[in-house]
C-alpha cells in the first residue's frame, strides 16, 4: 500500500502531498523535512529507493521535480517506480508536455488526476485512457456548469447521466 505521495522540487519546495495513511499535520511537516533531506541529497546513479523508518520511499526525478511514494517493505519497488511514471504520463497527456509550472499553478488539477489514479493507497486504474476520459468528463462538466447559472445545474446533472 502507498502511504503517501509527495512532490518536492529540487529546492525542497513542496508541490503536492497526498496522504493515504493517517499523519497529523505535525508529522507531515516532519516527514517532508526528513525525506527531502534524504532524497534530494542522493546522487544520480544510486537506487531510486530509500529506506525510511522501516518503510520504503521510491522516488524518481523528472526535471527539477522529485516524485516520491512511500510504500510498505514488501511492496514491489519497481512497480511503484512505474506507477510514478504512469502518473507523470497521465499528467503529461493532460497538460500537454507537463512542466513544473503547470503543477505549481494547477496543483489542484494534479490532485484530481491523482485521485483517479490512486485510491486508498492502491493503483485503481491502470489504463491511461480511462483516467484521461474521467478527468475530461469532470472538466467538461465543470466548463458547462461555469457557463450556466447555478440554477440550472440540476438539469445539467441530469443531462450528463
Amino acid at each position, binding site marked *: 500500500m502507498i502511504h503517501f505521495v509527495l512532490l518536492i522540487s529540487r529546492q525542497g519546495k*513542496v508541490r503536492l502531498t497526498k496522504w493515504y495513511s493517517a499523519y497529523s499535520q505535525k508529522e507531515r511537516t516532519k516527514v517532508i523535512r526528513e525525506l527531502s533531506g534524504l532524497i534530494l541529497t542522493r546522487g544520480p546513479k544510486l537506487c531510486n529507493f530509500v529506506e525510511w523508518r522501516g518503510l520504503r520511499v521510491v522516488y524518481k526525478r523528472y526535471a527539477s521535480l522529485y516524485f516520491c511514494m512511500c510504500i510498505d517493505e514488501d511492496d514491489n519497488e519497481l512497480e511503484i517506480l512505474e506507477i510514478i511514471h504512469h502518473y507523470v504520463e497521465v499528467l503529461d497527456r493532460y497538460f500537454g508536455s507537463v512542466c513544473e509550472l503547470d503543477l505549481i499553478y494547477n*496543483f489542484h488539477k494534479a490532485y484530481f488526476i491523482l485521485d483517479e489514479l490512486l485510491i486508498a493507497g492502491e493503483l485503481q486504474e491502470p489504463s491511461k485512457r480511462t483516467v484521461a476520459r474521467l478527468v475530461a468528463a469532470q472538466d467538461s462538466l465543470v466548463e458547462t456548469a461555469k457557463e450556466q447559472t447555478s440554477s440550472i445545474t*440540476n438539469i445539467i446533472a441530469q443531462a450528463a447521466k
Partner: protein
Amino acid sequence: MGSQGGFYQSKEFLDLVKSIGEARSKAEEDRIVLSEIETLKRRISEPDTPKRKMKEYIIRLVYVEMLGHDASFGYIHAVKMTHDDTLLVKRTGYLAVTLFLNEDHDLIILIVNTIQKDLKSDNYLVVCVALNAVCKLINEETIPAVLPQIVELLAHPKEAVRKKAIMALYRFYQKSPSSVSHLVSNFRKRLCDNDPGVMGATLCPLFDLITNDVNSYKDLVISFVSILKQVAERRLPKAYDYHQMPAPFIQIKLLKILALLGSGDKQASENMYTVVGDIFRKCDSSSNIGNAVLYECICCVSSIYPNPKLLESAADAISRFLKSDSHNLKYMGIDALGRLIKISPEIAEQHQLAVIDCLEDPDDTLKRKTFELLYKMTKSTNVEVIVDRMIDYMISINDNHYKTEIASRCVELAEQFAPSNQWFIQTMNKVFEHAGDLVNIKVAHNLMRLIAEGFGEDDNTADSQLRSSAVESYLYILGEPKLPSVFLQVICWVLGEYGTADGKYSASYITGKLCDVAEAYSNDETVKAYAVTALMKIYAFEIAAGRMVDMLPECHSLMEEFLASHSTDLQQRAYELQAVIGLDAHAVESIMPSDASCEDIEVDKALSFLNGYIQESIEKGAQPYIPESERSGMLNISNFRNQDHHEASSHGLRFEAYELPKQTVQARIPPASLASTELVPVPEPVYPRESYQTTTVPSVSSDAASTELKLRLDGVQKKWGRQTHFPSTSTSNSTSQKTVNGITQVDGSNTANSRTRETYDSRKQVEISPEKQKLAASLFGGPSKTEKKSATGHKSSKPSSHMVKSHAPKSSMEVASEKTSPVQQPPDLLDFGEPTVKSTAPSLDPFKDLEGLLEPTTQVSSAVNHSSTAAVTKSPDIMGLYTETPAGAHHKDSDILSGLSNSPMTNMVGGTTTMQVAQSSKSPNLKDSLEKDALVRQMGVTPSSQNPNLFKDLLG
C-alpha cells in the same frame, strides 16, 4: 489544455504562488504564508462571498496547508463547500476535505450526510467524487451510515463507480473487517466483472483476504491462473498495455495472489507453473516494467511449491539483475536472492562477488538490503564475519531507527549462532557500547544471565574463566568516557557478582571502580542503584571470606549521599549495605552467598505457612478469602496475559466497552470463556501489551529474555508461570533460573542441544557456507583466518582455537590446546568442554558440510584448473567415502578426522597463508581485491576437500 493561469485563478493567487516561488529563504516564505493566512481568515468568513471566489480561497487554503502551515480555521468552509450543488464547487470542497481531514477528525460527522446524499446522485461524476471522499474519510463509526449505498453501487452501470465502490469496501475491510465480513462474497463476484479496471481493483481486497485466510480461496486458483493467462496473452484492451507490456500492474497483483495461494500447496502450485513460466519467457527484461513483473515472478516462484524449471528461470533472472549496471536492479536482485536462497541455497554461490560489491557500494540503500540478505544467510560458520560487518556499519551510521534495527539483528544472530560465549560477550559489548541506549533492556539481562550461567554445563573452570574475562573486559571498557546506561548496569552487576571472584583484583580496586561509575553517572539512578548493590555484594563476599572490610573514603561519601537520597530505592539500598556490613561472617554468607545468582529461590506461593493463622481467624468468625476470579466485576489478570495479541490489536474496543458490564452481570462467565469469544472484541485489549511483545519477538532466546524482563517486573511467581513455555529445558527442575537454559542452548553452539539442531538445519544451509567463507576471506583478514582454517580442518563451525584442536582429537588434545593457548587464551579454555562432551555432534556436522561442499568445490576448481587439480581429484574421493557408507557416517567421520590429524601442522600453514592473501586482498582497489578474492576462493573451497598439499603447491 492549459499553461499557467488557464484555470481561472485570480491574479492575487498567481502572485502568491509566484512570490513563494521566488522566496529566498524559509523565513521569507513563512512570512508570505502567514500574511496570506491572515488575508484568508478575514475574507473567508465574510458573508456572501461568491462561490467562485470561495472556491479559490479553499484552493489557497490547500496551498497554505501543503506548505506546512495550519489552515484549520478554514476546514469548516471546505466542509460547507461539499454541500454545494454544482459539481465544480463540490469537487473542490471534497478535494479540500480529503486533504485536510483525517478520518478521526470531528468534522467528519458533518460530511457524512452530504456523502450519503451524493452517493445517491444520478450523476455518476458526483458519485465518483463522493466515493473518493468515502475512501479517505469514513471511519469505523460511520461505516454503517454509507455501507448499504456502497453495496448498491457495486452494481452501478458505470465501471468507474463500481471500481471506486470496490475500493471503498476494501477500505472498510481494512478499517474494520467485522463490519463488512458478510459482504466479502461481493469481491469474488466482482472478480468476474467485464471491465478489466474493476477486475483489477478487486484484486486488492482479494489479496488482503487471501493473506488472512488462504484456505477459503483455494478454489479461485484456477480463475486467477486463467485471468493471468489471458492478460499475458494480450486479451485485454490495448488501453491497458503499458510500455508494450500487457496490463503489467494487473499481472503483478495476480502474481502476488498466486504466490500466497501456492505457498506450501503442491496441487495449487502445479496449476501455476505453466503460466508463470510463460511470463518469465515473455517478460521484456530491457524495460523497467518488464523487470518489475520478472521480480514478482521470482517472488512467486520462491513462494509456491518449488519447481526446478521455474527456479532455474528465477535464478537466471536474478543473475541478470545482479549483473546489471542499474542500482535499482541490483537492489531487486539482492532482494530476490534473499527470497530464493530459502529454497535453493546454492544459487548464492555464483553471486557472491556481486553480493560483496553491493555490500561495499556507497549507496546506503543497497548496502542495507545486502545486510538483510546476509542476515538471512547467517549461520554458525559465518556469523562472526557477518556480525562484525554489521557492527561496523552500525557504528558508522546516525540513523537511529536503522541503528536499532541492525543492533537487534546483531543480538539476535549472536544469540542464535554464537560460536563461543567469549565471542558472544565481546560482540554484546560492542553492540552495547555503540547502540546501548537503543537495544532492549532484556538483551542486557540475557547477557548477565549468560555470564552467571556459563555453559549450562558442569564445567566450572570454563565458567569462571569466562567471568574473569568478562570482568577484565569491563574494567577495561570503564575507561571509556561515556557509556550507555544499559551497558553500565551490566558492568556493575558483573563486577559486583564476579569482580573479586578469581582473586585477581582486590575488593578495594573493584569498589573504587564502582564508586567512580556511581559518581560519573550521578544523574542516572538505575546505574547508581546497580552500583550500590554491586558494592554490597563485594563487601558481603569480603566479610564472608573472613577479611576485614575497609570502606574507601569515596565509598563512604557516596553512601552518605545515598542515605539522604531523594530516591527511596537508592536509600533503601544504601541502608541495606550499611546493615550488611555490620553483620558477622556467618550471617552475611547466608544472606549474600557468593555466586548464587542462579540458585533457586523457594517461594511458597500458596503461603501455606499461614494456614494455621487463617484457620484460627476463620474460627473466630472472619470472612474466608474469595479468589479474585470469583469476585464479580473483575477479570482474572492472568487471563489478559494469555490473550492472543491478535485480539488485542483489534481496534474496536471503545465500541464494545459498553457491552461488557451487561455480560458480566448477566452471568458470571468464567474468564476463560470470555477470552474465547473472539468475534466480540472483548475489553482486554485495553490492557498493556505485555503478551503482545513477547509473542512478536521471534527467537526462542528473546522469548526467554522477556521472561527475564518479567522476572524483574513481577517477581518470582511469574517466572514459574512462564516456565511451561520451555519444553526444551526438559532437564530443568522447573525453577525460574532453569528457564535460562533456553538461552544457553541457543547462545552457544557449544551445548549439545543446539549442536544437533544446527546439524539438522545444516542440510538446508550448508551449501552456501563456502560462499560465505570466501566472502569472509575477501572482506576480513582476521576472521577469514578462522574461516579458512575451519575449511582446512573438517569444516566444523568452531572458531579458530576450536579448529586446531578438533583436527587432532585423537592424536593429542593437550598438544592442541597448548598450541592454541598462545594465540588466544580464554577461548581454549572455553573449548575444553567440547571435544569430550560433544564429540558426536560435531562429527556429524562436518560430514554434512562436506557433502554440501562437494558440488561447489568441483565446480570452482575445474573452472580454475591449474593449482587446484589436486582438489578435483580429491573431492570425488570423499564423495565416494560418503556414499559408500552413508549409514555409518559416524564411523567414517572419525576416519577422516584421524587422517587429518596426521597433518595438523600443514593445515596451520595453509591457514596462515590464506590469511595473508586475504589480508593483502583487502588493501588495494576493488578490482584487485576481487581478483585476489577469486584466488582465495579457490583456496577457501579446496581445503574442504582436505588436501593440504594444495597449499604446498601454492607456496612453491
